[in-house]
């Protein structure tokens, strides 16, 4: 068990990280992600308010739709990445990272002006279980009358799961199909056990409970950013390859001006994916070396259990950011060869 944003969480369950990772890719994995924070935004100005503090376009959402977005600073860097759920035209739910929930809450609260918005930190009102992988749908379907197949990717619905009022969202952080179920925290154990039972935990192809380590390797293979690694208050959305959630034309939002300027001038550094081409494993915070000079830093580096490669993300100067560029990673004093590759590293067949 490790401390994670103030939560006591398992790095891995007895099956081990590799097995958990592979099972999620091929069958299903269950993650207790109750640590995630939730902030409730209500009122007639809920949409314009959130649209002003996040980078993606909240006005594009319909009821029952979720959106990946970012809370931005005035210089276009990232306070946090988040999911914005539209429950109704006057009701949004922001799902944020555990370690940043308090910071986000203060930031969001401080941005409220005379808009008609009520904010509430409801993190303690929800548990969250993520059932991920190709078998996630048939497993969860055993516990609910909701027609899960009708929930589109990045959409959600209210409903009853095993007798428990829940929000069932077709989202995840693994690169697989799957669902995230939000419910009252005192129902977490019941839902956890029922999902394991329905998923035949214990059988060779059954669901496996997965820890933080597998959550990290799965998201890394799927090339999803992790806060304080790929994104933080020192890197802008454009540098982090998050131009796709940066809607400069949607109207004003915090950081828009800086991001528009940066887009016009061109970014100087960029987040790239790399594959280690020699023996060795790149790890977080190691230096990227080119011709003896440190040119960048690894933000996440790890073995990729499904791809069976050693991969990572790093920030490098834009002139050395093209696919095919050879670089070296300083692995505890040993220079190990790597090559910039296209991302995502892994994309599931649909």
């Amino acid at each position, binding site marked *: 068990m490790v401390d994670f944003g103030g939560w006591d969480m398992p*790095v*891995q369950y007895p099956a*081990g*990280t*590799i*097995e958990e*990772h592979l099972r999620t890719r091929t069958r299903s994995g269950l993650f207790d992600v109750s640590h995630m924070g939730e902030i409730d935004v209500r009122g007639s100005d809920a949409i314009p308010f959130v649209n002003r503090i996040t980078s993606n376009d909240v006005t594009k959402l319909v009821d029952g739709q979720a959106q990946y977005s970012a809370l931005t600073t005035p210089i276009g860097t990232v306070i946090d990445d988040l999911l914005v759920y539209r429950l109704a035209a006057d009701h949004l739910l922001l799902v944020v990272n555990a370690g940043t929930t308090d910071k986000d809450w203060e930031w969001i609260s401080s941005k409220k002006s005379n808009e008609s918005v009520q904010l509430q930190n409801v993190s303690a009102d929800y548990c969250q279980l993520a059932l991920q992988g190709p078998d996630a749908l048939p497993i969860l379907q055993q516990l609910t009358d909701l027609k899960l197949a009708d929930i589109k990717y990045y959409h959600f619905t209210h409903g009853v799961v095993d007798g428990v009022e829940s929000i069932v969202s077709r989202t995840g952080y693994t690169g697989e199909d799957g669902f995230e179920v939000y419910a009252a925290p005192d129902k977490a154990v019941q839902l956890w056990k029922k999902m394991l039972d329905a998923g035949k935990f214990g059988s060779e192809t059954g669901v496996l409970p997965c820890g933080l*380590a597998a959550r*990290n*390797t799965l998201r890394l293979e799927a090339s999803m950013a992790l806060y304080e690694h790929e994104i933080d208050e020192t890197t802008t959305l454009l540098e982090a390859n998050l131009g796709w959630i940066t809607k400069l034309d949607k109207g004003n939002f915090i950081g828009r001006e800086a991001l528009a300027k940066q887009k016009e001038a061109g970014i100087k550094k960029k987040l790239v994916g790399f594959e280690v081409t020699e*023996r*060795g*494993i790149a*790890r977080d915070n190691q230096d990227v070396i080119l011709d003896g000079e440190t040119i960048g830093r690894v933000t996440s580096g*790890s*073995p990729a*259990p499904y791809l069976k490669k050693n991969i990572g993300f790093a920030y490098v100067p834009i002139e050395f950011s093209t696919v095919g560029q050879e670089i070296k990673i300083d692995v*505890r004093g040993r220079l190990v060869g790597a090559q910039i590759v296209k991302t995502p590293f892994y994309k599931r067949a649909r």
Partner: protein
Amino acid sequence: MANVPEDLHYSKDHEWVRVEGDQAIIGITDFAQNSLGDVVYVELPKAGEEFAANESFGSVESVKAVSEVFTPVAGEVVKINESLGDEPEKVNSDPYGEGWMIRVRMSNSGEVDSMLTAAEYEDFTKAESE
């Protein structure tokens, strides 16, 4: 319960030593491999390199973490377990056998006497996991 063979010497860094004449075979314990999880990479020195007692001679990596490994005895590496290059998982499946790491010609074979016995190591790991 972790397996702790009677005939080996143990360190508090979770290495084991098997003495064969003036040579020592070194690896990591069952307790250590279990705490690390799936070993995906083992970095070993070259034959001929010399190490002082308790010096780091390489590293063992799981998906999540890198752990250094230390030689409890001083000496010159006479052989390394090359097969761990392709099959690092042997450290998990057979930590006291095929998962051995290096063979050292000890410069002071008395050093093993200050290491833990199997019983002492078992007590030590119990205390550590509590």
